[in-house]
């Protein structure tokens, strides 16, 4: 390190690797002064020369200089005084080497510098005061130049010389203030930024070096303006130049720069400055380019010609306090950095090390530089695809690849991990500051909040959290949320059957269509009333007949009361106690549909024990236009033809009695094991059966000619059971009855579906709707779809499980009668229907016109979120689509797929 250091020194500080020097310096600094002195001694000649030459040139300059060359002089003064530190060793050595004083001065100066920092105004005096210590040596060498420079009115110089030489006359106030400002800055810089100092130290070396570079004085025909770095032909022009706008501007800029310097310290110090031209370059390469450049060459030439000091080609590294230096105009101005030396201690050095600028940057993104070749294959230019820029020069390309902009692009587009120094622009910094400020405010706010109202705070916390989660969800929804993957062990695992408890979904388009169709097929009120009336009349008339029969055969009835009780399906206790009329009325009016018992407490033996509604009537499955309803009369014994005839004979009169104003026709229907009552366009089929018909088959195989058809009787019994089952299972099931009505309609409308008997269809619907996992209630639209899904999935196909009939022994297949082709066709139809439903054409399945979209008001309300409800069929399409639908939907639309 030491060698490095000294090596650097001998070369005029060309190669100050920051760290090395710093460390070395400190190693040497306090204890090894002698050694240092020795080294300096060896170097002395060079140092001396430079110093001398500097002085000489100064001298020359001074002679030439008109009183108004402030900058240069001023700078010189600085060099001598404030900036002395850096060059001090050399100068001291050159001046006749007083090692002893050296040390003292050294310390003194340290103190003095600090003092300086304290008060800028008081500084000049103090400064000189301290300076006195080594003044002798100094004066010896510098006497002449100093004297000569007095011509120029320079504040610092003056200050110094006021003490040393006293030859001093008026300097103008402006300059003075400028100088003080400058000094203040410097000291400020030194005070607040020791780190920067080290570089200045190096600078000092450079400064010394600069001096050496000075050529021996030439005849001074050239008038050189140091601020503007130009030469003038003669004193006149020179003066004019100095008066001129350009110069003034530049001078002002210089001063400005000096004052601004403090702010710019904050910049990361990796820019380089050409001291000669006062050009700041942003990097090594830029600097190199500048050095090669014509402008720089010209200035060098001029300076050589002038014999002015040419600063080494070492770039001045700008950073921290340096900045102020760089903006000062002086060429061989020795820096405030000198201050760094005295104050230097371990820490500073470290920090200095860190500041060391510009580790060699590796060019990146070679792949993205396109070479553009001319026709003969020569590379004529380059195109950077990342930054979209062109260069003709390979050097420029190299520089670009190391450049900040390119690296940023590379970071952005290729490797996000690439480290690029942040160079916050003023705006960014402001934003940053603003952020910090707000963060602080927020913190304070929360802190206060926390103290004052913890509960409220909590509320807000949750609110915040919720918002956060919402955002998170939103992000997640957009995909690419790698870290948040929640692998589910099962696809669709814990399948999304939305278990109960969820709010019931609103009505969907399918629901609306299903309900609309349902209300179309549901019987009108007057139809229902008419049916109700005829049924009621028939029932009451049958009761009358039963009474008559009971009275005519009292003997038989008395014996087997017990047996009757067991054989009776379900005598309703509540009804039994009621009086005949009221019971009758209540039952007919309500949806009771239970057995209408003819029995009363006292008589246990009637032949006709009761009548019950069965089939669609009892199940509430009547559709508009239905004219046939069924009743079943339970008999105590096997129903015989004789009994039937007897009833047919008695019934008209009974009817007349019950409803004198209506005309009913009673006909015997032995084939159906019953009779029919017609009137008002309606037909009531009354079947006779008895529970005994079942038991008998095993015991008594003998055919009684008189007994009614056994098959029909059994059917009638089954109808009773079906009704019971239906009332128990389907009526309570949400949507089920609606769907069965719709399916009944479908079976009537569509030939493909007609083979599916009503009971099988009811079973199917009930099973499918009730088997929803989670016991979720389905809306009508969903229920219909689910039924279609079930059939579509091959439930009815050969090989399917079949529909177990719960009302029969060993639950046989309720749909066993279907042929394979019928099963196939049903499945096919359901498959098509399912897809129609999925694609919003449920109306085709239902055989209706599409409904218009829901009303506007309704929609606007829900437009904010995704609607389940669609009304998918826009009003627009009503004209054309509607027509098409009418033709297609009119005639069994679901049948289209079948053949």
């Amino acid at each position: 390190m030491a060698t490095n250091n000294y090596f650097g020194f001998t070369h005029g500080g060309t190669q100050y690797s920051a760290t090395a020097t710093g460390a070395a310096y400190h190693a040497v600094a306090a204890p090894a002064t002698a050694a240092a002195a020795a080294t300096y001694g060896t170097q002395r000649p060079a140092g001396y020369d430079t110093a001398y030459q500097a002085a000489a040139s100064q001298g020359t300059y001074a002679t030439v200089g008109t009183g108004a060359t402030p900058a240069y002089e001023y700078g010189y003064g600085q060099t001598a005084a404030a900036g002395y530190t850096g060059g001090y060793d050399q100068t001291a050595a050159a001046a006749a080497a007083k090692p002893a004083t050296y040390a003292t001065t050294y310390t003194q100066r340290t103190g003095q510098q600090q003092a300086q920092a304290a008060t800028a105004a008081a500084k000049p005096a103090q400064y000189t005061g301290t300076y006195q210590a080594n003044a002798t040596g100094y004066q010896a060498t510098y006497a002449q130049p100093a004297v000569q420079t007095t011509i120029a009115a320079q504040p610092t110089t003056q200050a110094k010389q006021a003490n040393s030489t006293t030859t001093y006359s008026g300097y103008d106030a402006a300059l003075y203030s400028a100088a003080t400002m400058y000094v203040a800055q410097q000291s400020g810089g030194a005070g607040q930024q020791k780190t920067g100092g080290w570089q200045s130290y190096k600078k000092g070396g450079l400064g010394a070096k600069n001096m050496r570079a000075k050529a021996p004085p030439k005849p001074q025909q050239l008038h050189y303006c140091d601020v503007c770095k130009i030469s003038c032909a003669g004193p006149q022009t020179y003066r004019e130049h100095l008066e001129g706008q350009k110069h003034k501007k530049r001078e002002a800029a210089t001063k400005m720069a000096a004052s601004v310097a403090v702010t710019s310290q904050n910049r990361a110090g990796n820019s380089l400055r050409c001291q000669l031209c006062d050009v700041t370059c942003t990097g090594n390469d830029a600097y190199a380019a500048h050095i090669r450049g014509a402008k720089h060459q010209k200035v060098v030439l001029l300076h050589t010609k002038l014999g002015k000091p040419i600063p080494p080609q070492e770039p001045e590294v700008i950073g921290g306090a340096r900045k102020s230096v760089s903006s000062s105009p002086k060429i061989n101005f020795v820096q405030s950095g000198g201050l760094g030396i005295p104050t230097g201690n371990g820490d500073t050095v470290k920090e200095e090390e860190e500041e060391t600028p510009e580790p060699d940057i590796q060019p990146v993104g070679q792949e993205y530089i396109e070479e553009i070749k001319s026709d003969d294959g020569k590379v004529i230019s380059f195109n950077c695809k990342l930054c979209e820029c062109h260069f003709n020069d390979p050097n420029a390309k190299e520089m670009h690849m190391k450049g900040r902009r390119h690296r940023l692009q590379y970071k952005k587009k290729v490797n996000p991990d690439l480290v690029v120094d942040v160079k916050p622009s003023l705006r960014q910094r402001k934003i940053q500051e603003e952020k910090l400020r707000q963060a602080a405010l927020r913190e304070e706010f929360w802190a206060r909040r926390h103290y004052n109202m913890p509960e409220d705070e909590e509320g807000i916390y949750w609110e915040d959290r919720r918002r956060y989660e919402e955002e998170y969800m939103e992000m997640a929804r957009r995909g690419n949320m790698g870290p948040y993957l929640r692998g589910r062990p099962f696809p669709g695992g814990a399948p999304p059957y939305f278990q109960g408890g969820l709010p019931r979904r609103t009505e969907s388009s399918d629901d609306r269509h299903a309900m609309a169709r349902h209300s179309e097929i549901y019987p009108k009120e007057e139809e229902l009333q008419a049916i109700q009336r005829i049924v009621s009349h028939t029932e009451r008339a049958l009761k009358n007949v039963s009474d008559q029969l009971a009275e005519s055969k009292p003997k038989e009835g008395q014996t087997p009361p017990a047996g009757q009780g067991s054989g009776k399906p379900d005598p309703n206790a509540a009804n039994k106690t009621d009086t005949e009329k009221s019971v009758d009325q209540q039952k007919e009016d309500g949806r009771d549909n239970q057995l209408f018992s003819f029995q009363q407490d006292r008589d246990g033996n009637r032949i006709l024990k009761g009548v019950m509604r069965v089939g669609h009537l009892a199940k509430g499955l009547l559709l508009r236009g239905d004219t046939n309803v069924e009743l079943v009369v339970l008999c105590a014994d096997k129903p015989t033809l004789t009994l039937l005839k007897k009833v047919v004979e008695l019934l008209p009169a009974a009817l007349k009695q019950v409803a004198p104003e209506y005309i009913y026709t009673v006909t015997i229907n032995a084939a159906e094991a019953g009779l029919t009552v017609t009137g008002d366009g309606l037909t009531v089929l009354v079947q006779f059966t008895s529970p005994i018909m079942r038991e008998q088959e095993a015991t008594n195989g003998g055919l009684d000619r008189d007994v009614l058809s056994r098959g029909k009787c059994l059917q009638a019994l089954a109808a009773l059971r079906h009704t019971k089952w239906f009332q128990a299972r389907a009526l309570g099931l949400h949507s089920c009855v609606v769907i069965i009505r719709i399916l009944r309609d479908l079976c009537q409308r569509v030939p493909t579906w007609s083979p599916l008997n009503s009971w099988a269809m009811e079973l199917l619907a009930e099973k499918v709707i009730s088997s929803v996992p989670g016991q979720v209630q389905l809306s009508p639209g969903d229920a219909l779809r689910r039924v279609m899904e079930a059939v579509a999935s091959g439930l009815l196909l050969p090989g399917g499980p079949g529909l177990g009939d719960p009302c029969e022994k060993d639950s046989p297949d309720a749909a066993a009668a279907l042929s394979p082709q019928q099963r196939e066709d049903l499945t096919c139809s359901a498959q098509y229907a399912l897809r129609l439903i999925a694609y919003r054409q449920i109306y085709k399945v239902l055989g209706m016109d599409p409904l218009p979209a829901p009303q506007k008001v309704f929609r606007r309300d829900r437009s904010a979120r995704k609607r389940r409800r669609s009304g998918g069929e826009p009003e627009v399409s009503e004209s054309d689509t509607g027509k098409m639908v009418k033709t297609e939907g009119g005639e069994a639309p679901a049948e289209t797929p079948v053949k």
Partner: protein
Amino acid sequence: KMARGMRGRGMSRGIGGRPPYKVKMFLPRHPFDLALCEMSFPRVKPAPDETVFTQALLKRNADLSPTPAEQTAILNLVTKIQTVLDNLVVAPGNFDACQLDEVRQVGSFKKGTMVAGHNVADIVVILKTLPTREAVEALGNKVKEDLKNLMKNEIVAKGEQLTHTTNERGIEISNAFACVRVMVTTLHHNIRKLDPEIHLDQKIMLSHLAAIRHSRWFEENAHHSSIKVLIRLLRDVRNRFEGFEPLTPWMLDLLAHFAIMHNPSRQALPINVAFRRIFQLLSAGLFLPGSAGITDPCEGVSLRIHTAMTLEQQDICCLTAQTLLRVLAHGGYKHILGLEGNSSIAKEMSVWDGVVVSPLDKAYENPPEKKEGEEEDEDMEAEGDESMETQET
């Protein structure tokens, strides 16, 4: 009517009153699935004997499984490439066009569901850097070079010369017997930095990341052999029936897993039952609009996998399954498995034992021109969904 309108408004306001959580009113429903409601449908007649069918399934699987020679060929190539890539991860040396973070095998080769004759293995390379085309090109060249070095001592038989190509997914290296696709992607947090001008397509990058998740999921959840057999059979069916084209390998994986494992007992169903169940599920509209379908287990949010298909594709897929289901029910399994006949059964009328099986028509209609302000119903949301499917096989 008025009252109803009021209620509607009231309800929607009530919902709107909970702003942070948008209550999604669309609750897709799971379609009818016989396997889940066998309680309601007890078998009323003995199940037909299916041993022949099962044997046919197993035979077909054996036919479809790659031969040992094929396995070896592809394994050799995969191993080499994996070695080269692993080296690049560990010691990139002076290769700086991109930085590799991770190399993973994915796809059918990794999962063990490869179908014979389709000897493609997939490897996903996750880059730390962004996947520019140049980087991929450079990676391709590097791999090529390294492979050459690796194989310089081998005697390269005819047909074993490697060909390298680069495409928008990454690199493909193949010889006459096998092909390895090196699919490039980048770290997750880099995804949104992708610029279509410079980088590979973002969706493809995401799909490659997804592929990794998929193969991980598969390892953990779908290791059951029946699932693999079923996947292989399904892949074959998919390849032969046009309507199933839009089903991605990932969908098939999930579907097979679902069909085999998703039942009340959580025990694997027999292959014949599961195979039929696939068609039953699809016929019941598992992959139709409005169905809950299968939720992608590898996406953070609930994403129904079938939404990657267009509505029309969903329709066609469903109707193909519906027709095949009926063919299957009438004993046409040999045609479905490709042991006999051809795929025309999905589109043409066929007669099985006197039963005429007719093909189905599409239910999907091209939507009429949307009026301004006409919103897409959730049923129609599918088209917009981001497709997360992968091309890995």
